[in-house]
């Protein structure tokens, strides 16, 4: 007779997730309790931030306790999971704070939106933990479905609705490919566990499966040529949701990508290495070059995000512990910078019907120096500029180091990375030039006074970036221990990098 009870081991392994879900369900009930008249969204959001904090505590506890995986190898309990969880929680908390501000202004969001964000977070946390394609797929869909809805969260906005539909259709389309890939991998290995797949010889089924799986993940991390949705969706979605997508969704997708690559796709490294190489190169180059011509800030940040996906792919390509650590560190910095940037963006885009362009920032420094400086720091962090851009430099540094120290040194890719970074300076600096070098227009709208939570997010991000920019060691240690459990199952073959 089979024991259908929830095994203790599973409970143990999923303590943070269970904490989160239970909290979320309570919040859901509570939010519908209040009724519509009292506009419970902001309160819900505050509670949601609390839940995130509690979950973070749970994650830290679980990490400190150690060994939280399951014995059947379907759930990981390694540092990578917890480190990524913390980054995701950070991103979500920040996005919630921004939502709080946004709601205070627009009153466009329903109380269920923070709940959906927490549920999406649940899916993301599953992505960092799962070592089974089935769990990964469900987590992936959980996250995706929630985010599709979130993209359309502003029901009064046609742009939001359009973003939602575009994201949904393309997401479903690409996850179709992905699930087909999973099917083929299952067919090749006879099991959905990554470890088993990673121990399978790379036959035709396996290879086609890898290819399709790659496509699905490449879509989510918005790698070229699967990136076209990104600017539209970032543009149309409400700013806090865009921040959420840019920071957390991308981080979760990369966590999934890295885990699958490392644990399951070792046998096919010869095949996917060159493909991913080209994807990374194209992503960096096209993302940055197209961003040059953007005037709409959100679209610009979208392309910038695409380019960053390219940099992160380089870390994945390093295929080493250092690469994993670099990825974690990078995502942490990227999350911070994204939150900071969107915090500012939210404040300055107040009063604009649809889009905020670079021209709207002209002379910002002259009227609101604090906002301008914060935004500049975040942009410089994206750029990877040392000191002034804070930890952004070290993020790039670790990637470079990992790429060069990889068993197949990615010298050419490093050069592509570096050169495309220079291109990226072209648009980051244009924004900075607009803010600092131009006078404030006569008719320009004065930005609203900075709301408390936005200020907290902004200041915290900037300070964290700057401090880590001088002394990155704590974060680097976290990233390093966050990558320990993630050594490649199969030693990378000396693959032919183009």
């Amino acid at each position, binding site marked *: 007779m*089979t*024991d*259908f009870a*929830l*095994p203790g081991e*599973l409970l143990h392994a*999923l303590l943070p997730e269970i904490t989160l*879900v239970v909290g979320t369900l309570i919040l*859901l009930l509570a939010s519908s309790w209040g009724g*519509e008249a009292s*506009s419970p969204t902001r309160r819900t959001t505050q509670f949601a931030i609390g839940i995130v904090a509690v979950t973070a505590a749970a994650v830290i506890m679980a990490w400190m306790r150690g060994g939280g995986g399951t014995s*059947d190898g*379907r*759930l990981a309990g390694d540092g990578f999971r917890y480190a990524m969880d913390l980054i995701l929680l950070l991103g979500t908390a920040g996005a919630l704070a921004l939502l709080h501000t946004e709601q205070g202004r627009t*009153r*466009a969001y*329903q109380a*269920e*939106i923070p*709940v*959906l964000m927490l*549920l*999406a977070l*649940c899916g993301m946390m*599953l992505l960092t933990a799962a070592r089974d394609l*089935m*769990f990964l797929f*469900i*987590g992936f*869909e*959980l996250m995706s*479905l*929630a985010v*599709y*809805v979130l993209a*359309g*969260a502003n*029901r*009064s906005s046609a742009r939001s609705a359009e973003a*939602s539909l575009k994201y949904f259709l393309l997401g479903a389309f690409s996850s179709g490919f992905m699930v087909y890939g999973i099917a*083929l991998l299952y067919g*090749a290995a006879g099991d959905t566990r990554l470890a088993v797949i990673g121990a399978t010889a790379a*036959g*035709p*089924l396996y*290879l*086609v499966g890898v290819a399709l799986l790659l496509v699905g993940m490449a879509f989510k991390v918005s790698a070229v040529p699967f990136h076209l949705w990104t600017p539209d969706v970032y543009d149309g979605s409400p700013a806090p949701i865009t921040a959420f997508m840019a920071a957390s969704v991308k981080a979760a997708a990369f966590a999934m990508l890295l885990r699958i690559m490392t644990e399951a796709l070792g046998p096919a490294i010869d095949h996917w290495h060159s493909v991913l190489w080209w994807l990374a190169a194209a992503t960096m180059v096209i993302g940055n070059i197209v961003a040059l011509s953007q005037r709409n800030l959100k679209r610009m940040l979208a392309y910038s995000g695409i380019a960053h996906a390219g940099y992160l792919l380089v870390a994945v390509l390093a295929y080493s512990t250092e690469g994993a650590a670099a990825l974690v560190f990078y995502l942490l910095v990227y999350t911070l910078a994204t939150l900071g940037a969107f915090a500012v963006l939210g404040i300055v885009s107040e009063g604009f019907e649809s889009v905020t362009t670079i021209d709207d920032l002209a002379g910002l420094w002259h009227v609101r120096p604090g906002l301008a400086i914060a935004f500049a720091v975040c942009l410089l962090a994206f750029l990877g500029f040392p000191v002034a851009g804070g930890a952004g430099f070290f993020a790039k540094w670790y990637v470079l180091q990992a790429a060069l120290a990889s068993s197949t040194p990615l010298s050419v890719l490093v050069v592509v990375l570096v050169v495309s970074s220079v291109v990226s300076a072209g648009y980051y600096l244009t924004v900075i030039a607009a803010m600092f070098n131009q006078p404030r227009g006569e008719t320009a709208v004065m930005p609203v006074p900075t709301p408390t939570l936005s200020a907290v997010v902004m200041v915290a991000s900037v300070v964290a970036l700057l401090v880590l920019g001088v002394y990155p060691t704590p974060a680097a240690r976290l990233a390093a221990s966050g990558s320990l459990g993630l050594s490649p199952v199969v030693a990378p073959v000396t693959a032919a990098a183009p």
Partner: protein
Amino acid sequence: MTPFYRFQFYLFALMAIGAALLFVTRKSPVSAALWLVNVMFALSGLYVMLDAPFVAAVQVLVYAGAIMVVFVFVVMLLNLGRPNALPDLREVSVRIGAGLVGVALLANLLAVRRETLPSVDFAPAVDNVVTPVAESLFTDYLLAFELTSILLLVAIIGAVVLAKRRAVA
């Protein structure tokens, strides 16, 4: 494996493919949806032949019976019953191109044929087809099962958030 079995197999296969082709070429959303239902029925037949009667049943009940009904319902709700003034299909050149892409895709996918698959016995195993699924579902994949509840919760909340009529402040 009996020839009849084999005949049936290919019959369902051809049915599925044919219905799918008709599905993608129909202009009317409703007829397209119905052809899709047809595909699903054919597939359900194939499932049965592939020793998956439970899945076949779920396919008919959930997929054809529930999901597709929702589709048709929405089509009707949005008053799309008749073909739009604008043709739903894209231009001929796009269609030809898409066909080519489809063929190329298929050619690539058929690389899987290089894999030597084990020959398995196709004698229908009548006994106890649901139990192994259930056991698997509630032991190894228990977590997945639980997660689907959250997934459905998301779907519900999502649908409510998006589709509920509400006076927006």
